[in-house]
């Protein structure tokens, strides 16, 4: 099976939000009302009902002229996915196409994945008591259709396809932009330096932080081994302390514990 990916080229995004609407339409996600965010962006962040989100960043360029940075954001479907590692039920699993999916029938709402996502994607749904996120249009890709957001994007800012081919395309696009003098262009998540590689990767026109992306996210579960080892060390010290305290003999009261304890 091929590994599918989405390549979001922010240099050609016009901020039309067709992707955001198409996502809502296909996945039957209800409206949530407007939210004032201080920009043109609607919803400050992903919610249980907003899985595609166009980020609007207004920023002055080097000449002081205001300019837009636009980026259609989505679940990254990480190769090393914090949510998937965190999930105790197996609800969050990797599909045959390499995407990360929440099985709604199995999720029990423990919310460990919410705290383990380095991008703040996975969201608890108070109506169902389970978590939601982008499914990578699981139903569509299993029927040989591209994701709804990619299909609808009028500028091909979002492209869908087989990962290695898309990665090559992204690198070619970066080289072209650098040749044209767009020095600040950079790729995010194409290579395996970010969580083993993202299955939704980006071409950005500024630092990742500008788009609310972490510059160097790490797999949260990397800490389990160290923390467990420290806990075992703590257990040995505390166990020994209790043993010494209760084993003590020849005390002032003259009570003898010889022979009656074992």
């Amino acid at each position, binding site marked *: 099976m091929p590994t599918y990916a989405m390549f979001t080229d922010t240099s050609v995004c016009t901020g039309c939000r067709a992707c955001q609407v198409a996502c809502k339409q296909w996945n039957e996600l209800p409206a949530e009302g407007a939210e004032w965010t201080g920009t043109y962006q609607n919803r400050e*962040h992903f919610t249980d009902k907003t899985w595609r989100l166009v980020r609007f960043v207004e920023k002055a360029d080097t000449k002081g002229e205001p300019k837009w940075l636009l980026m259609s954001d989505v679940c990254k479907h990480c190769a090393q996915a*914090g949510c998937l*590692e*965190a*999930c*105790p*039920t*197996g*609800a969050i699993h990797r599909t045959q196409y390499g995407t990360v999916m929440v099985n709604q029938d199995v*999720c*029990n*709402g*423990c919310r*460990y994945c*919410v*705290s*383990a*996502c*380095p*991008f*703040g994607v*996975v*969201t*608890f749904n108070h109506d169902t*008591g389970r978590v939601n996120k982008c499914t990578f249009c699981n139903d569509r890709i299993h029927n040989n259709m591209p994701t709804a957001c990619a299909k609808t994007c009028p500028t091909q800012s979002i492209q869908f396809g087989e990962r290695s081919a898309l990665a090559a395309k992204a690198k070619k696009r970066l080289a072209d932009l650098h040749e044209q003098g767009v020095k600040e262009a950079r790729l995010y998540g194409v290579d395996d330096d970010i969580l083993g590689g993202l299955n939704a990767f980006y071409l950005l026109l500024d630092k990742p932080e500008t788009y*609310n*992306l*972490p510059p160097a*996210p790490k797999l*949260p*579960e*990397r*800490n*389990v081994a*160290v*923390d*467990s080892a*420290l*806990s075992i*060390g*703590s*257990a040995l010290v*505390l*166990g020994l*302390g*209790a*043993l*010494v*305290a*209760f*084993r*003590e003999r020849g*005390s002032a*009261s003259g*009570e*003898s*514990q010889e022979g*009656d*304890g*074992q």
Partner: protein
Amino acid sequence: MTFLKAPHWEWYIVWYFFLGGIAGGAYFVGAIADNFGGRRDEEVAKSGYLVALPLTLICGILLTIDLGTPTRFLNMLRQFKFWNPMSIGSWGIGAFGAFAFVSAALSFSREARLVWLRKNIGKVGSLFGFFLASYTGVLLGSTARPIWTDARFMGALFLASGASTGIAAIGLISYLRRVELGESWRKIKKADSFAMAFEIVLLALLLGTLGSPGRAIWAGPFAAPFWVGLVGIGLVVPLALSLVLKPRAGQAGLVTAMASILILVGGFALRYVIVFVGQS
């Protein structure tokens, strides 16, 4: 770091971490007293087992209520992911509950064979007690949340707190059960003083390695529960009292019980501060 989401683990989880720590700590300290102590210490062990059993039951209730739909707790048992604290925690609390039940039941018998069985079951059950009191800290450490993700020693610290509050609970329950512990009151005090001293060391290590983000724990809105609740009431005052007070023979139980209440308040403050500081 505003783009990260909080899991909204609130009061049910704070209480679970607190009571789970007591249950695990009381059990393994009880089992150690059972195996390595004298005859009087069998009452210490009994108090430990009798604390662990109902608290474990309450822990299970708290966890299932927190899920909203309690039967969904069963979904946890679809998998066993040994590297995942939430997964092995779900299995671990069940296994620990079984040990707590058997140990508590056997603590009512004086028959030699059953006593032998209880002591040996206590040895194995202690491993689950250590686990229950510590894995919750490891669980918080393996998230992407600020502070939690950078704070090492949380599992180790929760375990020390589980030991100190577990011993405190043993002291309190022993006093309420009106059992005559004699020299064992002094052993309880000694064991708890050691656990608290070690807890202070671990707390210093945690804050020291955490660096400036740790200010949120001791200088921000959590400064009051941290300094007054955890450090003051929970650690320094009971430690100082144990050094200063030399209770007469008949009053050792009462003094232990009073100190125990302070230590328990401190253990709750620790869980409150850590759980909420990572989500604010």
